[in-house]
C-alpha cells in the first residue's frame, strides 16, 4: 500500500470499496478571513511549490490577480469591497480554491476510474494521468473550482499539497502565511482553534462570526472563519448552503444501474421472445402463390419467344 497518510478512501468511477482497514487522521486547512491582509504570499507559495505559472494577464480593475482560478493557478485571493449598513466600507478578502469536500461532487461526477481520489485524511486529489478531460468534475463541483488546461486538456485544482501533507508538512500556503490566517492541522484541532477566533471576533462586535464548514457536502477539509458567517455570499459569492446539485445526483445516482438493467432486459427479452415464439416468417401460402405466379410468367415468356 501507499504511504499511510495517502491511503485512498474513495476513487472515482469505482463501484467496489477502497481499502478501509486503516484510519488516518482527518486533516483540515483553516482560513481565517478576518486575519487575512491580502498579501498573496499564499498564491506565490502555491506557484512555487507546485511549479505552476499562469501567464501574465491584464488588469481588469480589481485586485484579483489573476482574476480567476486556472489550470496554472490553484488559489486566488478574491477581493470584495462591501458597503456596510451604516455606510462604511469593508474590504473582504477570501482565499479561493478547492474546499476538499467530504462528499466531493467532482469525484461523484467523474467517469474515469481513479482520476479523482479521496485520501483517508480527507484530501481530494486529481490524478491527471487518469483524467480524460471531459470536464464532468466542473459540472459536479458546487464551488466552481476545477479547471481544464488548454495545454493538455486535463483538469487541475488545489491538491492541499498532498505531497507535503503525506510527509507531515503543512501545505505551502499555510507555511508561508505571514499573519497566521492560514492554519493547518487535524480537523478537530482546526475546529477548536476556530472557536477561539470566533469568540475573539464576537467580543470585537462581529456578532455573526462563525465557522464555514458546510454540512451539505459533508463538511469540508478547507474551512473559513468568517466575520459574517450569516452572509457567506458577501465573500465573492461563497454559497450559503452548498450541496451536490440534485441534477448531478440524479445523473450519477441510482438511475444508472436501473437504466442498465432495463436495457439488459430489453436485449435478453428479445432473445427469449425469439426462442419462445419463433420468427415472424412469410406464410407458406403466400410463398407458393408467388411461386405459381413466377412459373406462369416464365411459361408465358417461353410461349412468346417461340
Amino acid at each position: 500500500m501507499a504511504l499511510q497518510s495517502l491511503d485512498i478512501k474513495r476513487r472515482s468511477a469505482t463501484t467496489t470499496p477502497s481499502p478501509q482497514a486503516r484510519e488516518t487522521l482527518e486533516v483540515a486547512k483553516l482560513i481565517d478571513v478576518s486575519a487575512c491582509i491580502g498579501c498573496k504570499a499564499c498564491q506565490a507559495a502555491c506557484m512555487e511549490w507546485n511549479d505552476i505559472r499562469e501567464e501574465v494577464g491584464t488588469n481588469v480593475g480589481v485586485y484579483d490577480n489573476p482574476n480567476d482560478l486556472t489550470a496554472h493557478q490553484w488559489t486566488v485571493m478574491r477581493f470584495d469591497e462591501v458597503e456596510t449598513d451604516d455606510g462604511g466600507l469593508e474590504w473582504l478578502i477570501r482565499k479561493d480554491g478547492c474546499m476538499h469536500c467530504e462528499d466531493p461532487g467532482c469525484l461523484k461526477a467523474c467517469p474515469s476510474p481513479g482520476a479523482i481520489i479521496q485520501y483517508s485524511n480527507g484530501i481530494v486529489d486529481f490524478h491527471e494521468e487518469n483524467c480524460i478531460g471531459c470536464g464532468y468534475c466542473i459540472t459536479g463541483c458546487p464551488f466552481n473550482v476545477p479547471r481544464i488546461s488548454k495545454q493538455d486538456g486535463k483538469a487541475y485544482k488545489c491538491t492541499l499539497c498532498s505531497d507535503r501533507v503525506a510527509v507531515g508538512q503543512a501545505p505551502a500556503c499555510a507555511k508561508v502565511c505571514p499573519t497566521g490566517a492560514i492554519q493547518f492541522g487535524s480537523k478537530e484541532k482546526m475546529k477548536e482553534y476556530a472557536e477561539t477566533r470566533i469568540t475573539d471576533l464576537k467580543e470585537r462586535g462581529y456578532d455573526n462570526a462563525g465557522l464555514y464548514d458546510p454540512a451539505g457536502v459533508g463538511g469540508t477539509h478547507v474551512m473559513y472563519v468568517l466575520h459574517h458567517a450569516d452572509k457567506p455570499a458577501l465573500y465573492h459569492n461563497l454559497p450559503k448552503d452548498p450541496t451536490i446539485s440534485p441534477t448531478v445526483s440524479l445523473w450519477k445516482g441510482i438511475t444508472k444501474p436501473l437504466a442498465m438493467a432495463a436495457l439488459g432486459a430489453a436485449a435478453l427479452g428479445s432473445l427469449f421472445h425469439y426462442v419462445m415464439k419463433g420468427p415472424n416468417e412469410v406464410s407458406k401460402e403466400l410463398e407458393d402463390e408467388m411461386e405459381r405466379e413466377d412459373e406462369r410468367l416464365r411459361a408465358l415468356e417461353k410461349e412468346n419467344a417461340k
Partner: protein
Amino acid sequence: MIRNPRDIQRYNASERANHWVVGICFILLALSGLAFFHPAFFPLTQLFGSPTWTRILHPYIGVVMAVFFLIMTLRFARLNYIAQRDIEWLKRVGEMVNGDDHNMPEQGKYNGGQKMLFWGLVLGMSLITITGVLMWRSWVTVPVGVIRVASVVHAAAAVFMIGLIIMHVYAAIWTKGTIRAMLYGTVTRAWAKQHHRAWYRQVTGDKR
C-alpha cells in the same frame, strides 16, 4: 443465388448507404457513450485507442450522425405520417408480438410500430444532439446549471435511443426476409404482401 427479377425494391443505394452511416455512428456512439455512462463499461474506451481518445472522438462522431440522421429524416418523414390504420395496428400489436398476425390491419410502406420508432428516434436525436453540443467543453461554454441539466437529458435520451434500437434490430431479425432490404435493397413479393400489403399493392398494381 440469383435474385428473382420480380423482387421489389424497398430502398435505393443512396438510402441504404445513408442508413448505414447512421447505423455505424450509432454503434460507435453507444459503445463510447456507455463507457462514460457506467464504470462497468469503462473498458470499452480501449476500442477507441484510449479513454482520452474516446472522449475526444465521441462528439465528432455525434456530429456526423446528426447530419446524416437529419438527411434520413427528411427522406423518410413523409412516409411516417401517422394514419388511422397505424393506430389500429398499434392497438393490436400484442397479437402480433404473440405470433399471430392474421388480424393485423393492412399496412403501407411502414407499419404503426415502425412509425412510432421513427418519431421516437427523431425526438431522441433532437434531444441528444442539442444537449451533446451544450456538454462539449472543447468548443462550447454555457453556465454550469445548463450543463447539469444537459448531462441528465443526454444520458436519458441515450438510454431511450439504445432501447429503441434494440427493438429496431430485433424486429429486423425477428421478421425474416427483412434485413436484405437494408443490405441490398430488395424484398420478395411474398414478404411485401404479408407485411406491407397496401404498399405491395401500390408498387405492383396487384389488386388482390
